[in-house]
Every structure is written in C-alpha cells, then in structure tokens.
C-alpha cells in the first residue's frame, strides 16, 4: 500500500518520507521502551523499597506483639510517616485482630489495609499493598500490611511521557532538518539525470550530458547514460552523414538519369525527325518513281500512237499496262500511311479501272468484280501480284470475250492458313484454247506470269470450268523466301 502511495511522489519527498517514517518509528519505539522501562523499573524499586521497609518493621514489631504492647507497635508504625508514599499500615495478630495501625491524614477508608491482604505485593489501580507475616522463632505472631500510593509512579510516568514526547519531537525535527540536507546526496544526481533525460527527449538534442556524479551506483548510471548519449549522438551523426551522402548520390543519379532521359528524348526526336525525313524521302521517291513510270507510260502511249502495225501497237499497249500497274503500286505506296504496305483491294480497284478504260467500246459489256479481302501487302509482293493480275486480266479482256460477248472477270485474294495467300483471277469467257499448256506457252504474258510466280516462290494452277481460272498460292511474307532478281523476266 505504502509503495502505491509513494509511487508518484518525487524522489526527494520519497527519501525524506522514508527516513522520517523510519526514524520516527524508531524514536517513538525507543521513547515508549524508555517510558515503560522506567515505569516498570521505578515500580519495582518502589515495591522493593516497600518490601524492605515492611520486613524491617515486621521484624521490629515482634517484641511489641510478643509482649502485647500496642503503644509500642503504634510507635513503630508511626515511623512510616517519613515515607511519604506510604498511606497506611496495620499490624494484625495471628487471630486477625487489628493490633496497631498507621494512617496518613486525608486517606480514603477504602485504602486502609485489610487483614486478608495477600502476602507479597498486590497492585491496585491507585496503590500497591505489601503484606508480610510477623514471625519469631518459627512462630507466627501476626501480619503487617502496608499500603503505598502509586500517585508518584503515575506522576513520574506522565512526566516521563511528556518529556520523552518532547525529546522525540525535537529529535524528529532535527532529523527532518538533517535529512532535508542529506537527501540531496542521493536525490540531486537522480533529479539532474532525470532533467537531462527529459531535455534530451524533448529537444532531441543528444549533445547534452548529465553532470557527473560520484562513484556510486547513481554515478555509474549517469556515466553509462552519458556514454549512451555519446553513442546515440555518434550513430545519429553517422546516419545523418549517410543520409546526406545518399541524398547527394540520389541527386547525382537523378541528374544523370535526367541527362540520360534528355539524351534519349533528343535521340528519339532525331530518330523521329530522320524517320520523318526518310518517310518524306520515301514518299518523294515513290512519287518520282510513279511520275517517271507515268512519263514512261505516256511515252509508250505516244509511241504507240505512231505505230501503224496493230500487232506492234498491241505490244506497246501491253507494256504500257505493265508499267502502269507498277506506277499504281508506287502511287498507292506514297498515299499509304507507312509507305511500305498498300491496301491491295484498293490497288486492284484502281488497276481494273485503268485496264477497263483501255478497252475501246466497252460499255458495261465486261465487268470486273473485285473480291479481294482487306489485305495489306508489302511492295515486294504487291508488284509481282499487280503484274500478274495485269497480265491475267489483260488476257481475259483480250481473249475471253470475243465479239460482243459479255462477261465478268473476278479477282479474289484471300488469306489461307500458315500466312499463305491465294490469288485467283477467273472469267466466264470462252476458256482456254485447245492447245493451251500452262508450262509451254510462248506468249510473253504467260512467261512473265511464270517468272513472277517463281519470284514469289508460289504455285500457279489453271483450270477451265466455264471460263479460264488462274490461281496462285504463295507465301505472304517475302522475307522467308530468298529474294530472286526480277532481272530475268
């Protein structure tokens, strides 16, 4: 309970309280012991004195009793008046009759000696009674009873209690004064340590140090605490240094990265620019190629206009178609977004429109149906395919619909499995002549087709089922196929 009460009290007060409580208890106990010891000792002395006095008187009164001299006995008892705490006394004969008595004036009747008093000392609240037998030569003559007042004892007890109380009080006050000074020896270093710890905790300043103490436990504690602070401070500085270093490194690295990123952005920009330049250049190249091819076409056209021989003129017209089909590819290329692929269906549309326009007097007699799927092709594939379509459609226009026969030329291109494409050109015309052999034809058109098919590493088949039908299967991705020079065409 003590411990719980004192727990939140300051160490100074705690020390003072502990010392004061223990010294007070010790002083009070000592005081009580002294008063009780003195009381008991004084009482024993009183009883001893009283017993001696009584025994002497008893011895002295033997003759008075033996010779029945009451006056003598009374005279002996009257000597008691000099003993001021003796209040009364009486000699009784062995038959219990009162033989002689002594009584101090003003004594209560109840305090008078009684014949039945017990031998020895008997304590009453206010008095002590001492009784002794009177005997001589082994013969019991009677009994002497003496009463003594204990007032003096009680007075002494009260006086001692008061005195000791004052002494204890003064001693406690002195002890308080001393402990108030001396407790600092213990409390001061602890208080200072606590203040320092508090300051360190509040300010986070680890450079603070508690004042050094002695070589006792508190001194050791302070020393250890200071050492701990030093260690923390050191570590703190190290951490700070490391953090600073890290920050510098991060900063450096960030700058490096930023520089790198800027470099990349610049590089990208330059790449983009060069790409744009390349696109532009490519577009320009395609445009010029197309224009040049267009010029060739125009030249061929002009040249053809001067030719009177129909056969020659037809050959010119064929060449003109072939150049046109290539010019169209380039045109489509520079119109396309990425300059490397064209929409094949749109190309077929344009090509067919041109081819139909070359036939005089075709007023919807022959139609071309474009069944090409939405396929994009690279220039490597698109040019041979365009030339092949040009040859086949030109063939059909020339030979499939003799006279005024009407018909439909169907062009399809569809995606097959494994990235292969199937290009087919068919018509519902007259079909192949009886002598037609795909592999042994001498016409330039067919040779061209064969050659282009080889170039595509494709497979060409033909069929006659109510019209001619050519079908070419090839790999779409030309990269997988070794490039063949188109020079041998």
């Amino acid at each position: 309970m003590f411990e719980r009460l004192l727990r939140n009290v300051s160490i100074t007060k705690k020390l003072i309280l502990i010392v004061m409580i223990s010294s007070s208890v010790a002083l009070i106990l000592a005081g009580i012991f002294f008063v009780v010891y003195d009381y008991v000792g004084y009482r024993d002395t009183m009883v001893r004195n009283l017993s001696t006095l009584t025994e002497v008187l008893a011895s002295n009164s033997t003759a008075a009793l033996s010779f029945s001299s009451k006056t003598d006995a009374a005279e002996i008892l009257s000597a008691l008046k000099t003993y001021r705490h003796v209040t009364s006394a009486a000699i009784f004969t062995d038959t219990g009759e009162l033989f002689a008595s002594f009584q101090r004036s003003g004594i209560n009747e109840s305090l008078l000696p009684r014949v039945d008093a017990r031998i020895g000392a008997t304590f009453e609240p206010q008095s002590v009674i001492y009784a002794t037998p009177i005997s001589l030569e082994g013969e019991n003559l009677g009994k002497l009873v003496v009463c003594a007042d204990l007032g003096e004892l009680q007075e002494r007890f009260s006086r001692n209690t008061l005195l000791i109380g004052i002494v204890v009080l003064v001693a406690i006050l002195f002890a308080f004064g001393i402990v108030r000074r001396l407790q600092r020896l213990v409390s001061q270093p602890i208080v200072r340590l606590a203040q320092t710890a508090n300051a360190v905790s509040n300010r986070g300043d680890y450079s603070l140090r508690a004042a050094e103490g002695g070589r006792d436990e508190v001194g050791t504690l302070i020393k250890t605490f200071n050492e701990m602070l030093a260690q923390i401070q050191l570590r703190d500085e190290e951490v700070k240094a490391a953090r600073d270093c890290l920050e510098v490194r991060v900063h450096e690295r960030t700058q490096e990265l930023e520089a790198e990123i800027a470099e990349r952005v610049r590089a990208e920009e330059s790449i983009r620019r060069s790409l744009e330049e390349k696109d532009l250049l490519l577009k320009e190249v395609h445009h010029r190629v197309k224009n040049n091819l267009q010029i060739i076409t125009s030249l061929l056209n002009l040249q053809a206009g001067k030719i009177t021989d129909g056969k020659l003129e037809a050959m010119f017209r064929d060449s003109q178609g072939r150049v046109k089909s290539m010019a169209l590819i380039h045109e489509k290329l520079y119109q396309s977004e990425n300059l490397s692929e064209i929409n094949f269906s749109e190309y077929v549309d344009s090509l067919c429109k041109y081819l139909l326009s070359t036939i005089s007097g075709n007023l919807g007699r022959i139609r071309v149906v474009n069944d090409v799927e939405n396929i994009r092709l690279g220039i490597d594939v698109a040019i041979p395919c365009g030339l092949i379509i040009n040859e086949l459609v030109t063939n059909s226009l020339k030979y499939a619909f003799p006279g005024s026969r009407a018909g439909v030329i169907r062009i399809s291109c569809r995606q097959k499995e494994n990235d292969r494409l199937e290009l087919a050109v068919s018509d519902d015309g007259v079909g192949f002549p009886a002598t037609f052999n795909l592999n042994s034809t001498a016409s330039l058109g067919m040779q061209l087709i064969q050659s282009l098919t080889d170039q595509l590493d494709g497979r060409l088949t033909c069929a006659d089922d109510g019209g001619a039908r050519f079908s070419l299967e090839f790999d779409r991705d030309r990269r997988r196929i070794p490039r063949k020079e188109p020079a041998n065409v």
Partner: protein
Amino acid sequence: MTLALKAPIAWMLVVVALLGGKARLNAQDKVPEHQVKAAFLFNFAKFIQWPPSAFDATAEPLTIGIHGQNPFGSDLQRLVEGKTIQNRRIIIRESNDIDDLRSCQIVFLATPDPDKAVAAIRALKDLPILTVSDCAGFLQLGGMIRFFIDENKVRFEIKLRNLELAGLSASSKLLKVASVVADSSGSR
C-alpha cells in the same frame, strides 16, 4: 467480603487457636494474670542472648526453672510444649532447692519475700541465668526482670546492668517494650 463468608473464617481461627493451646496475650484484659506472665516468661527467651557457657552442649534444651510455689499451674508447661527457641527444646523444672536450678537458663523466683529472693540471687550469682520475679525491689536486690501491673496490664522492667554482669544481653526490641531501669535510678 460478605458476612456469611467472614464468619466461618473467624470461627476457624478460634478453633485453631484453641487446639494449639496457645495463651493469647493480645486480649490481655480477659486473660488471667498468671497466663500472661507465663507467656512473657517464655517470650523472654526469644529476646535474650546467653553466652556459650550457659549450655553444656549445643543440643541441650533451654530450661526454665521455677523456684518456690509454681504460680502458672500447667499453663507454662502447655505453652512451651513442642516449641523451640534458638533450636533448643524448652523444658520446665520446678524445685524449692535453688541449687537444683543452677543448670537452668531462666529461673522464676516465685516468692513475694525479698529475703528469699536475695538468697536465691546470691546462690545464682555469676551464673548465666536470667532471673525473673514479681517480688518488689527485685531489681535493686540484683534481679534482672521484674513483672508489675500497670493500668491492669502486666508489664515488666529490666535492669541491664544485672544482665551484663551475668554475661547476658537483651535485644533492643525487648528493651523497647520494657521499662528499663537505670543503674542509678531506684525502683519504679
């Protein structure tokens, strides 16, 4: 204490006193004179110191001699029976011949006649014997203790000088109770 309890105790004390056959001196007025004197005679032995020569042997009884007509009857005999003084038994010897009593320690001279008393004193002179009598002028005749009556009470006087001459000494307590007769002073 109630009366009912007090009464039996008193009665018991009386019975004990009667059985013991003690002569009670305290109520002197009611006790016959010779009984008081017998008790006194016995009590003197307690307060007197005899020289070693008074006894032949250490275990020898203390003898009280009565010279002449015994005035105590059997009272004295009863009184001393079974008692010891200074570790000695007490015996009573009666004799009309004073020489028979020379070995006694106390001799009571039972005679009112001074001449007879003188003769007896002379016969016992220089012996360590306490002489007691109630004969008038006994002390002046060389006696040691004389009984007398004062205010109806038995009292006694002592002549210390005569005791000392016989080699006896008396306790101061005895002297306090007695009337001491000075050497120069006459009879009371």
